[in-house]
């Protein structure tokens, strides 16, 4: 027993001494340097995101796509700071309304040295469809009828004219994989993936750490500003804040509350990098369940609510101006966006006009309305409370709030259970169609809110068929005017992108753009 006791004390001492004697951890090496740019820098990014799959056929979510954007090439890409489509591993153009032809840029290689060919491109697309993973992106390829290769040319045949197809090719779903490595009918393990992008995934412990090093065979044009990029997956935002403050991570990116961002912005050695974001939040009315006896009364109630909501106040008081007021379903920063609701209802609330609209439709006030919101997916408690306050303060509404966990909320909201609910949208690609096509067609509307306007339907078909930017912008403008009048939903805010960045780390702001592609290669250290 004496020996055991001594042993225990010894181990405890070793443990304690080791603990006290250790120097500062990994953040030290990853901390800020001084002087000129250092291309050999290691950058550590902390995030609360989780990765569904590093295989392009297995994921349809932003965090996984960010992973993939740095490992794989697509035929097309969105250059930093724009929402344009540009060549990456291919040069593409429409040859007819339903034929899209791409030529593979020569000299591209996967990180294992295999050349990237047109057959690889065809294989990649067919593979996504064949695997059809339950949480994969196969549905994005729904417009495609077939894909074929001939020499260095890839030909996509579409089911119908679709101007958004080039945008689909910029998404990570269209990442090109090596047909010699990726199995045709099943997903490849994350630590085995091989791409032709600027980085290779050198090591990956799921939900803990991912290490990216330069692809030695990279044949693209992007210049790398670091020699290693590490992603640290944090369990929650408070841990991310703590790691950013202690220097464990150089960049804290997603998902931090406005309060946490503000705290980080005021911390020593940290500053906030901001960029345009096109994530949006909106209030949906289920036109079957919302209050109002007739279609006219229902419309008047929606218009009155749109008239009363004070978006600027929400942006400043709830979000500390990390979001911007949103006056159309299509956010600012995208081609075709207008401020249709500002034009129709003004920038600020106008209770008199709202009252008049309700009175004209014979709606007795206050209108009882239950608004549902979610916390564990959208964290909308403060937004919902402020909305309720504003609507009730007008004297025209008597709002009651209800909440549900995401697993219940998502399904119930879209299956005729809630009369009004808060929802959000993250784009697949930065194009206005991604904010209208899934939302408003009478038969296939994603929200299942029973909104149907044949004219909006016609405009959606028209913009999807047109390849002229001018024409599409005009169509979107008409559509937004109609939507402002019908108010099937009330756009509330458009989220900016914000990251907390350690002093000396460069390039973060240049990658925070509407494409939501966090380009590791742009990040460096001075």
């Amino acid at each position, binding site marked *: 027993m004496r020996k055991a006791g001594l042993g*225990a004390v010894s181990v405890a001492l070793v443990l304690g001494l*080791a603990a006290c004697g250790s120097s500062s951890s990994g953040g030290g090496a990853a901390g800020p340097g001084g002087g000129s740019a250092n291309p050999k820098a290691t950058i550590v990014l902390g995030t609360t995101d989780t990765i569904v799959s590093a295989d392009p056929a297995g994921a349809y979510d932003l965090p996984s796509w960010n992973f993939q954007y740095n490992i794989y090439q697509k035929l097309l890409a969105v250059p930093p700071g724009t929402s344009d489509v540009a060549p990456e591993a291919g040069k593409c153009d429409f040859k007819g309304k339903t034929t899209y032809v791409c030529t593979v840029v020569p000299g591209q290689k996967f990180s294992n040295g295999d050349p990237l060919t047109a057959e690889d491109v065809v294989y990649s697309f067919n593979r996504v469809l064949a695997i059809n993973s339950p949480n994969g992106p196969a549905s994005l390829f729904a417009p495609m009828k077939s894909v074929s290769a001939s020499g260095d040319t890839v030909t996509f045949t579409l089911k119908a004219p679709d101007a958004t197809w080039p945008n689909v090719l910029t998404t990570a779903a269209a990442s090109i994989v090596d047909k010699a490595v990726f199995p045709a009918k099943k997903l490849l393990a994350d630590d085995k993936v091989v791409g032709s992008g600027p980085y290779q995934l050198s090591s990956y412990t799921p*939900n803990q750490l991912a290490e990216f090093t330069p692809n030695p065979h990279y044949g693209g044009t992007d210049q790398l500003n670091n020699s290693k990029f590490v992603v640290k997956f944090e369990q929650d935002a408070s841990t991310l804040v703590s790691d950013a403050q202690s220097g464990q991570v150089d960049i804290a990116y997603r998902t931090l509350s406005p309060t946490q961002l503000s705290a980080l912005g005021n911390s020593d050695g940290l500053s906030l990098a901001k960029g345009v974001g096109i994530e949006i939040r909106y209030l949906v009315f289920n036109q079957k369940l919302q209050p109002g006896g007739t279609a006219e009364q229902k419309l008047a109630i929606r218009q009155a609510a749109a008239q009363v909501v004070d978006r600027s106040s929400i942006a400043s008081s709830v979000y500390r101006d990390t979001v911007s007021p949103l006056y159309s379903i299509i956010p600012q920063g995208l081609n075709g966006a207008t401020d249709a609701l500002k034009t129709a209802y003004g920038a600020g609330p106008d209770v008199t006009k709202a009252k008049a609209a309700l009175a004209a439709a014979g709606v007795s006030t206050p209108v009882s309305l239950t608004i549902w919101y979610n916390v564990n997916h959208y964290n909308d408690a403060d937004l919902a409370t402020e909305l309720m306050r504003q609507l009730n303060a007008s004297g025209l509404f008597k709002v009651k709030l209800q909440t549900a966990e995401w697993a219940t909320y998502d399904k119930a909201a879209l299956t005729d259970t809630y009369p009004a609910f808060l929802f959000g949208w993250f784009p697949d690609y930065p194009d206005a169609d991604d904010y209208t096509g899934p939302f408003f067609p009478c038969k296939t509307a994603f929200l299942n809110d029973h909104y149907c306007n044949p004219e909006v339907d016609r405009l959606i078909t028209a913009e999807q068929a047109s390849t002229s930017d001018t024409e599409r912008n005009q169509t979107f403008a008409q559509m937004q005017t109609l939507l402002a009048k019908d108010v099937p939903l009330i756009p509330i805010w458009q989220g900016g992108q914000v990251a907390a960045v350690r002093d000396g780390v460069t390039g973060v702001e240049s990658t925070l753009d509407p494409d939501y592609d966090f380009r590791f290669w742009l990040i460096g250290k001075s």
Partner: protein
Amino acid sequence: MAPRNTGSLRRYLVTRLLLVIPMVFILLTVVFVLMRVAPGDPIQASVGAHLSPAQLAVREHQAGFDQPLVVQYFHYLGQVLSGNFGTAITDHQAVTQIIIRNGGATLELTLSAMFIAVAVGVPLGLLAGRMRDSWVDVSSRLFGIVIYAAPVFFLGLLAQELFGRKLGWLPTSSQASVLTQLDIKSHTHVLILDAMIDGKWGDLPDLFKHLVLPATVLGLTISGVVIRLVRVNVIQTLRGDYIEAARARGIGERGVVVRHALRNALVPIVTITGLQAALLMSGAVLTEQTFNWPGIGNRLVFYLEARDYTAVQGIVTAFTLAVVVVSLLIDIVNAWIDPRVRY
């Protein structure tokens, strides 16, 4: 006499092993039903906000989530029987791999915590038993009750606030700093062991530094039980005739307590310590959450939130088997250290 003892022990162990089968079966069934009764599924949790109800229904159909529960249940049992825990839908990781990879971190935490529980609990219990009704006894008992009653996450938060944020002595999250993790190649998935295997001695301080707070918090919680148990057994043992006989033989009080009383008091302590394995596992879930420790309990919470049936069922089964194996080992050790034990 001896051969008969061995036979009864063997029979007991075989019976215990056979009982594991219905136990795991019942547990799997309960977890299966609970997961299905709760709203949502992994596909909806993952891509729900991007798909219409119709599109979601198609994907759920492809995954077989719309099949009758009985069909899904027997499909799952078939998988488990073939030794295949399946693949998590949330992140496409093989459940066996999740258990192995994250189990290493849990093992590191629980073993360290158990060490601290024994290192703190046994001496304090011994002192309390020996000095019954003195201020030492009262203080030890009070400490034992309070520390055991305090929720582990609450203790964890207090420790993080004090040693992490106020004093800045220790890290409050993760198993290691980023560069240390990158430096260590995984062999056993127990980072400290992996560092030793590769001779990365320079990484050990960082690893221990990260281990101190979670292991101490969990260990102290468990020590509350150990203190009380050692105290009671020491008091009972000190009343024994052989203790009186030892004293009569002129053996010093220290020798009587340590060599005679404690040694005999340890038998039930070994049993109870083994039974604490379940408590340790559940404590590990909370401790791992509090300290962002990448153990299996941490993953269990993650997959529960994602409604990932496959992963949750696999991890719970692994937990069950771990507790069963520890219980069995304790029975064997008990029979070995105390010949009076009969089965």
